[in-house]
């Protein structure tokens, strides 16, 4: 379940970057928050961006269906991801983005020192090819982008006491994920300082070496972003996501999958013409999760630095 959340977050953040010309986005990957910011805003031929981002996920909400449940197990779970990403515009319409992540998971159950577990390592990578048939210009208010990509399992399995640890504590999902992505933006004014952003994503997950497959994920996002002067910007979005049940050896895993609706705010400051700093967060609004009980994300936040050449 946690893995799924992280996976989804990665993609959602990735998409968020894609959909928001004004603000960089972050994405996190399976097992842990991982992927971070890929700034996939519309670019012109030769544009090259490098970004570093880090994100903290607190995963301590216990939910039965759509109801919060009091957790009396003393459980604490969080994940921290760091991501380096790069985007390059091959032409005015074609661009490619890629990122690699490093993920650390912490889990504590009870007060015993034996209840503490930490894993860390290289996580998944993502490559995304994007085609932009329509883009916002001083003469056009619409932008449409379509993308195709893959989440590549670049991480290795983490071991604990000689045993492979559980899926939700792995830094990497360990399986290929095929990504379909689309984004639309509308500029409310010629300067494109106020934008409506919408995006949709779908990820089809393969089995990993342990024959575990995370449920396929789809997400929809709708939000606004605004630039204030030449230095500041902010965005706010509602993001709906849905994941199918996980499977191992083809058998459904109980208490996995569900639906979430999150609020995703972000603020951005342009330190220089080339360097921008983005702070972002995610707060759950509603959720309806499969099974009897699931731990799910309480909140997440992070920052990213993007440098454009």
């Amino acid at each position: 379940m946690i893995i799924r959340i992280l996976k989804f977050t990665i993609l959602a953040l990735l998409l968020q970057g894609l959909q928001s010309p004004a603000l960089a986005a972050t994405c996190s990957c399976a097992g842990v928050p991982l992927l971070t910011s890929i700034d996939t805003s519309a670019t012109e031929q030769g544009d090259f961006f490098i970004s570093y981002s880090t994100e903290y996920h607190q995963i301590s909400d216990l939910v039965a269906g759509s109801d919060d449940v009091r957790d009396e197990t003393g459980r604490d779970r969080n994940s921290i991801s760091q991501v380096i990403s790069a985007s390059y515009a091959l032409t005015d319409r074609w661009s490619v983005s890629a990122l690699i992540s490093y993920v650390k998971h912490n889990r504590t159950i009870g007060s015993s020192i034996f209840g503490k577990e930490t894993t860390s390592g290289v996580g998944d990578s993502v490559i995304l090819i994007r085609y932009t048939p329509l883009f916002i210009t001083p003469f056009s208010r619409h932008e449409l982008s379509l993308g195709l990509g893959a989440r590549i399992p670049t991480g290795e399995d983490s071991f604990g006491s000689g045993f492979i640890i559980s899926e939700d504590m792995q830094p990497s999902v360990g399986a290929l994920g095929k990504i379909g992505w689309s984004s639309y933006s509308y500029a409310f004014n010629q300067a494109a300082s106020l934008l409506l952003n919408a995006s949709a994503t779908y990820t089809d997950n393969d089995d990993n070496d342990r024959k575990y497959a995370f449920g396929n994920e789809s997400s929809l996002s709708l939000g606004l972003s605004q630039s204030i002067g030449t230095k500041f910007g902010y965005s706010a979005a509602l993001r709906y996501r849905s994941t199918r049940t996980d499977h191992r050896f083809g058998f459904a895993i109980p208490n996995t999958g569900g639906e979430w609706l999150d609020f995703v705010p972000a603020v951005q400051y342009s330190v220089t013409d080339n360097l921008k700093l983005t702070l972002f967060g995610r707060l759950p609004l509603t959720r309806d999760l499969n099974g009897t009980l699931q731990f799910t994300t309480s909140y997440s936040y992070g920052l990213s630095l993007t440098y454009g050449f």
Partner: protein
Amino acid sequence: MASRFIKALCLVLLLVQVAPARESAPFFSGAAINTGQQISLADYKGKVVFLDFWASWCPPCLASLPAYDRMRREIGTEGFEIIAINVDEHTEDGLAFLEKHPVAYPVLADREGGIGILYGIRTLPHSFLLDRDGRIVASYRSFKAGDEISLKQAIEKLLEQ
């Protein structure tokens, strides 16, 4: 399946061709909103031309216009000219700026993008340097104070050719 998918992605990347750079500056003509004179790019053949797209809502553009006007005075207009293209949806907004900060070079209005689309304008400021044969030799997609110094050097180099 996984490797096939990755191979397919790589193939798409290989198939994407980088568009060849445009060489000759697209032709345009129109009436200057600040001087009233009729302008045609063809009339400037034999001169080095700096073509500047701008709008009143673009802060760097507003800083660049006076700087370009000073640069023009320093270089002279014997073999050189600046043509500005204002892309404001409401040309009055551009005129209001020009009333406060007049420039001596001609400014055309391009509300619908008839010129800007030909030049592939996506963001502002965006400007082009044309040689004496009307070929685009450089393009600039930003402006900050001091940029006009290196621009002036590039223009003088073209004037020497």
